C-alpha cells in the first residue's frame, strides 16, 4: 500500500515535470524551414499518389511526376496546345497500318543503360502483351487498351534504333498516342530486373528509372513529397535547377499561402479563393492558359425518352444560361462552350456560336415537342474539377434556369467522385454534369471517346438516334446518343491521315453535335498556375497537354 502510494506520488510528479518540459519545448521557436531559392525548384500540388508507374495509373497527378522522369518517343511542344515534336525519336512516320520510329542515339536511362529499340518493344509488351514474361497484368490501367491495346498488333525492332509498330487497323491519332504519358518509355533492364509477375512489376512505380530530365531520388510518403535530382546526361534542354521537389498541400488556400511565403515556387489547381490570395499578394502571380477540356451536362437518352427528341435537348440548351455560369460561377476562368471540341484542337468549328440564353424560344420548342412539364434528375459531383470549379452551384443555376421554363429538376449530389463515375457509367442518371481533359489533343479523343456509341453504324436501329445502354461499346458515351451521320464522320476521321481533310471531317461532326445537342455545352476552362517571383516567369510555360515542363524552369 505504501509502495503504491509512493508510486502514485512519483507518477504525479513525473506528469508535472513532463508538463514543464513540454511547455518549454512548445515555447521555443526558430527559423522558418523550407523555402526555395538556389538550385532547388519546389512544385506544390493537391494530391500525392504513392506509385509512379505510367502504366499503372489513370491519374493526372501521377503523370505530373512521370513526365519529369520519363520521355515519350514523340512529345508535345511545351505550351503549344498539342503540336507534336521529337521526343526520344527524331523521325516518326505513320503510313497505312505501319508506324516507323527512328530513335536518337546516345540517350541513356537513369540506370546507365543506353536506350534502344528493345526498350520501346519491352515497354509496349509489358503494357499489353499477356504472352510477355514481364507482362504487367490485365486491368492495371484504363490506358492500356486506349493507348496501345486496341491498335497495336506487333512491335518489331529492325535495328538498335529502328522500331516498326504494326497496327491492327488504320488509326490516325496513333502518333499522338505515342506522346501520351502512358506511352512513356521504360528501361528494359529495369523491367527484367524486377522479375516476372504482376506483383513484381507493380514495384516499378516505387523507383522509376527513365530517360527524363530528373532522376527520381526519394519518395517520402509520410511527408507527401518527392525529391529529384537533375539528370546530367539528359538529352534535351535543361534542367536548369539542381534539384526538384514536388510536395503536396491539400488545401488550396494553404497551398496559395505557401507559394506567397516563398516555400514553393509553382503551384497548380488553385480554387477561386487561392487565385484571389495570389492576386492580392506582392510576391506571387497567376499564369493562365486556355485548356484543352470541356465541361458539359449530358442527357441520358437510353433512360429518359424525352431526351431522345432533339427539340427538348435544344430547348434545355437555350434555357441554361451558360454565359452566367462561366462569368459568375467560374469567375471568368472559363469560356462558353459551343461544341465538343475546344478551340485549340483541329476540327473545332469556328462558325459555331454558343447557344444564346433564350427562355422564350426554349418554351416554344418544348411545346412543339409536347414536353412542357418534363421533370428529371440531374446528377452532379461535389468537389471542384478543372473543367467545373463549382459543380453544385452550376447544378443549382441549371435547375433555376430550367424551372423558369416550367421544368422540374431534382439535383442528385455525390460527395465522392469515384461513386459518381460508377453511377453515371452504369447509366443510372437522367442527366449529369461531367467533363473531359484531353489525353493527346486529338479530335478523336473527344468526338469518338465521348459521343460515339462504339458500335458499327449498321447496329443502330433504323430511325433511332440512340442505342440501348447495354448495347454501347463505349463506356464514355454516357448519353447513348448514336447519330449515324455523326458516327460516319467520326469513323472517317479515325482513318484519314491527310490533315486538312481530317479537319473538314471533324468540323462537320462538330456542327452535327452542336445542332443535335446531346449535351448542354457548358465551358472550356482555363488552366491556372501560381508562380512565385523567384521563378523566371518566361521560363515556365503552362501546358494544356503534357508537362509540366519543369526542366525548362529557371530560378532568378
Amino acid at each position: 500500500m505504501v509502495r503504491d502510494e509512493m508510486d502514485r506520488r512519483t507518477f504525479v510528479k513525473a506528469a508535472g515535470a513532463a508538463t514543464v518540459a513540454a511547455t518549454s519545448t512548445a515555447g521555443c521557436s526558430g527559423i522558418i524551414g523550407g523555402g526555395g531559392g538556389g538550385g532547388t525548384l519546389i512544385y506544390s500540388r493537391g494530391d500525392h499518389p504513392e506509385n509512379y508507374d505510367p502504366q499503372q495509373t489513370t491519374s493526372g497527378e501521377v503523370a505530373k511526376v512521370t513526365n519529369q522522369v520519363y520521355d515519350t518517343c514523340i512529345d508535345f511542344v511545351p505550351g503549344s496546345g498539342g503540336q507534336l515534336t521529337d521526343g526520344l525519336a527524331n523521325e516518326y512516320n505513320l503510313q497505312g497500318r505501319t508506324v516507323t520510329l527512328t530513335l536518337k542515339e546516345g540517350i541513356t536511362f537513369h540506370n546507365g543503360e543506353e536506350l534502344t529499340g528493345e526498350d520501346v518493344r519491352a515497354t509496349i509488351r509489358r503494357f499489353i502483351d499477356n504472352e510477355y514474361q514481364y507482362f504487367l497484368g490485365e486491368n492495371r490501367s484504363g490506358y492500356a487498351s486506349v493507348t496501345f491495346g486496341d491498335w497495336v498488333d506487333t512491335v518489331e525492332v529492325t535495328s538498335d534504333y529502328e522500331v516498326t509498330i504494326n497496327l491492327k487497323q488504320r488509326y490516325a491519332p496513333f502518333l499522338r498516342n505515342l506522346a501520351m504519358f502512358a506511352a512513356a518509355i521504360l528501361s528494359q533492364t529495369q523491367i527484367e530486373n524486377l522479375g516476372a509477375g504482376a506483383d513484381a512489376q507493380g514495384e516499378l512505380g516505387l523507383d522509376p528509372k527513365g530517360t527524363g530530365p530528373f532522376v527520381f531520388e526519394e519518395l517520402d510518403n509520410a511527408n507527401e513529397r518527392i525529391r529529384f535530382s537533375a539528370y546530367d546526361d539528359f538529352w534535351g534542354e535543361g534542367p536548369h535547377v539542381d534539384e526538384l521537389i514536388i510536395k503536396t498541400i491539400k488545401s488550396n488556400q494553404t497551398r496559395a499561402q505557401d507559394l506567397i511565403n516563398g516555400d514553393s515556387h509553382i503551384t497548380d489547381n488553385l480554387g477561386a479563393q487561392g487565385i484571389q490570395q495570389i492576386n492580392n499578394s506582392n510576391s506571387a502571380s497567376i499564369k493562365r492558359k486556355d485548356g484543352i477540356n470541356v465541361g458539359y451536362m449530358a442527357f441520358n437518352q437510353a433512360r429518359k425518352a424525352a431526351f431522345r427528341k432533339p427539340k427538348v435537348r435544344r430547348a434545355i440548351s437555350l434555357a441554361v444560361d451558360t454565359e452566367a455560369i462561366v462569368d459568375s460561377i467560374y469567375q471568368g476562368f472559363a469560356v462558353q462552350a459551343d461544341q465538343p471540341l475546344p478551340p485549340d484542337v483541329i476540327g473545332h468549328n469556328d462558325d459555331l456560336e454558343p447557344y444564346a440564353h433564350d427562355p422564350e424560344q426554349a418554351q416554344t420548342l418544348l411545346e412543339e415537342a409536347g414536353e412542357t412539364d418534363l421533370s428529371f434528375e440531374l446528377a452532379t459531383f461535389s468537389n471542384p474539377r478543372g473543367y467545373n470549379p463549382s459543380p453544385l452551384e452550376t447544378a443549382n443555376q441549371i435547375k433555376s434556369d430550367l424551372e423558369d421554363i416550367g421544368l422540374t429538376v431534382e439535383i442528385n449530389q455525390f460527395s465522392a467522385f469515384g461513386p459518381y463515375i460508377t453511377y453515371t457509367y452504369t447509366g443510372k442518371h437522367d442527366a449529369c454534369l461531367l467533363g473531359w481533359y484531353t489525353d493527346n489533343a486529338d479530335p478523336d479523343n473527344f468526338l469518338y471517346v465521348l459521343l460515339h456509341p462504339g458500335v458499327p453504324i449498321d447496329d443502330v436501329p433504323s430511325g433511332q438516334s440512340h442505342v440501348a445502354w447495354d448495347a454501347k461499346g463505349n463506356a464514355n458515351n454516357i448519353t447513348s446518343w448514336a447519330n449515324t451521320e455523326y458516327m460516319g464522320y467520326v469513323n472517317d476521321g479515325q482513318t484519314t491521315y491527310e490533315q486538312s481533310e481530317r479537319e473538314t471531317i471533324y468540323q462537320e461532326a462538330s456542327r452535327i453535335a452542336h445542332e443535335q445537342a446531346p449535351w448542354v455545352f457548358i465551358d472550356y476552362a482555363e488552366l491556372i498556375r501560381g508562380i512565385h517571383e523567384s521563378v523566371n516567369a518566361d521560363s515556365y510555360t503552362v501546358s494544356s497537354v503534357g508537362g509540366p515542363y519543369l526542366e525548362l524552369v529557371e530560378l532568378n
Partner: protein
Amino acid sequence: MVSNRFLIKRLLLLVPVLLGVATFVFIILHLAPGDPARVILGQRASQARVLELREELGLDDPLWVQYLRFLLDAAQFDFGQSYTVARGQAVRSVLATRLPVTIELALYGQFIGLLLGIPLGIISAVKQDSVVDHLGRIGALSGISIPIYWSGPMLILLFSTFLGIFPASGRIGSTIFLPDHWSLFGMELPLTGMVTVDTLLLGDIGAFISASRHLFLPAATIGIYSLALISRMMRSSMLEVVRQDYMRTARAKGQGARITILKHGLRNALIPVVTVVGIQFGTLLGGAVLTETVFGIGGIGTTLVEAINATDYTLVQGTVLMFALLFTLVNLAVDMTYSYLDPRIQQ
C-alpha cells in the same frame, strides 16, 4: 498497482468492440455506391474491363464470402493491398507510414491542451468569478465552439501571413529530407515516423527546430479544442475539491494555499480530467483529419478521406479498424491510470 484480472477483463472486452466496428465499416462501405474497379481503371476503361477486374478482386463474390475473408485476414492483421490510394501497397505498410504522423500530431495537440488547460482550470477555480475566471470560461467556450477548418486558416493568417513566425504547411522544411534509419552503437535502427522524435534520434538539431516550428500551428489548432475542454473540466473538478473537508483541514493546520491546492487538490481533481483526456483522444484523431488537410500534413486522416473518396475498401477498412484499436487502447490506458489514481475503481 493495477490487478491482472482487471487488465485481462478490459483486454477481452476489446474483441467484441473491434468485431462490431469491423462489421459496421464493412456494411457501410458495401452499402455505399461506388465500384473500386471503375476507380482503378478510370473513365477510359470499357465496362467489360471493369467487370473483369471486379472478378479479379473478388468483388463479385457473395457479400458474406467477402465479409468472412475480410475478418479472417484482419484477425491476422492483414488488410490486403490498397486498391487505389497507395496502389499495390499493403494497407499495413500504408498504416505504418501514416499512423505515426497522426499520432504525433494528436499527442502534441493533447500536450498543448494539458499544458495550458490544467493551469487555466486551476486558476479559474481558485479565482472563481474573477476577471481571469470569466476570461478563461469565455476562452474555453470559444475553443470548443470554433471549428478547426476556421481556426486553422486563422492561425495561418496570423502567424504565417502577417507575423511570419511559423510556416503554413508541412511537417519539416521542404528541402530537409531525413535518412530512413538511425544508428546506435553501430547498429542501424528504423526511425519512428514521428518527425520530432526522429530528428532528435538523428541528432539533427536544425531539422528538429524546423520540425517543431512546422508542427506548432497544427498542434495548436488541435490543442485549442483540447485545452478548452480540459480547462472546463479541471475548473469544475477543482471547484468541488477545494470545498472538501480535507482541504480545509490542511489549511487549518497551517499549510500554504498553493501547496494545499497542488498537493491535495490537484491529484484528486485530476481523475475526471484523465477520463476526458482518454475519451477526447478519438476526437483528436478526428480533428487531425481536418488539421492535416488544412496544414498539408499527410497523416492517416487525409489518407482515410482519400480512400473513402476513391472507394478504396481495403484501406478504409484497415484504417478504421486501426483507429478503433487505437481508441480502445488509449481508453484502456486511461482506465488503468484512473484505477491507479483511485484504486477503488477496480472493485
